[in-house]
């Protein structure tokens, strides 16, 4: 009979690579502990905890998900540890990729035969952040109707459960362009178009500007909540019900240590 201790970690798909790397550091100190690492869209992760899933560490792509769904019943405190920005990712086989630029991306997506994808805003912060980027772009470029037009063209077949799935769709050539985090884009080696800071949700200096846009998200039970635009942040917590608090604390310490910061930076995230 194997009596190994198991540390259960549930995390946002966008954190896949840095979390795996941090587990390797964790094993330097606890080589006999088994780590069960699982991932989903951040809102889907929170739903799993609400439904009773036993988790020792939960790392999500938006502190708002903790506030909206998990605090104070399941989580007391969550640690904001990294930031990112939204980009438009593509590869050399994407239609019209030779013509795309910071100025032409809206025309390429709307006028050509090019297809583009986003993640599901009800399951994944990258999904509602994409809808925010479209609303902010409409304001920034003074293009009335831009949001509606992009939203209409991005059909259900191009909406994926989580941000990391978008990378697979682009790799397989199912879509030409994806609205993705810069970190995931860099990890997968895609080309990308960066957006101005008033659009890309990266800069706290524009927090009030981002807050002008909102997205309505629907929970599993049908309840709705409003998410305001905000700078992108990632946060980690140890749920109250964790039975491995000492091990969980050690893992969080690694994630927020100088070694963890280097891993995050190497994965394209900004430690904060």
């Amino acid at each position: 009979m194997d009596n190994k201790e198991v540390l259960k970690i549930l995390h946002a798909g966008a954190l896949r690579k840095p979390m795996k790397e941090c587990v390797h550091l964790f094993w330097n100190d606890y080589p006999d502990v088994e780590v069960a690492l699982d991932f989903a869209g951040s809102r889907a992760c929170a739903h799993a905890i609400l439904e009773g899933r036993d988790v020792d560490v939960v790392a999500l792509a938006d502190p708002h998900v903790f506030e909206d769904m998990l605090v104070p019943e399941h989580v007391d405190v969550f640690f904001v540890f990294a930031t990112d920005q939204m980009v438009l990712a593509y590869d050399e086989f994407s239609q019209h990729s030779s013509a795309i630029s910071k100025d032409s991306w809206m025309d390429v997506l709307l006028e050509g035969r090019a297809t583009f994808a986003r993640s599901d805003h009800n399951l994944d912060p990258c999904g509602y952040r994409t809808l925010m980027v479209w609303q902010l772009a409409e304001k920034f470029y003074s293009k009335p109707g831009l949001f509606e037009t992009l939203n209409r063209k991005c059909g259900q077949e191009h909406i994926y459960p989580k941000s990391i799935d978008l990378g697979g769709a682009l790799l397989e050539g199912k879509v030409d362009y994806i609205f993705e985090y810069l970190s995931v884009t860099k990890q997968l080696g895609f080309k990308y178009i960066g957006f101005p800071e008033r659009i890309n949700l990266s800069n706290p200096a524009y927090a009030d500007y981002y807050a002008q846009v909102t997205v309505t998200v629907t929970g599993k039970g049908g309840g709705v909540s409003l998410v305001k635009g905000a700078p992108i942040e990632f946060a980690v917590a140890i749920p109250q019900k964790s039975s491995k608090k000492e091990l969980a604390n050690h893992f969080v310490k690694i994630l927020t240590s100088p070694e963890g910061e280097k891993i995050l930076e190497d994965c394209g995230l900004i430690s904060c």
Partner: protein
Amino acid sequence: MCADDVSVPLEKLTQPAILLLLVTNKTHGYELIQKLNQMDCIDGEMEAATVYRMLRRMEQEGLIVSRWEHGEFGPARRQYELTAQGRKSLDDWAMALKARVKQIESFILNYNSIENG
């Protein structure tokens, strides 16, 4: 060429500006970025990534220290505080900048005397 074409490289003022903001209050990175972008001595937009990386470097150099701050519930953020070494660095910056102001004032004085014949 007009005044807008001449760019005096002020990007190095970011570090003393961070030290100056931390003299009076412990602050987390998110708030520091917001305050930096409101300071007149900062030229143009400060990218969040640049500031977060600079904070890490300043901590490694011993100018600031950080610790996680949080209430009973809600978000915990890394708060930064000035060290004695950081305070000395701010004083050194202020002295160096005052000397530079004198040089600039002398330049303007010479320029004006030529312009006015």
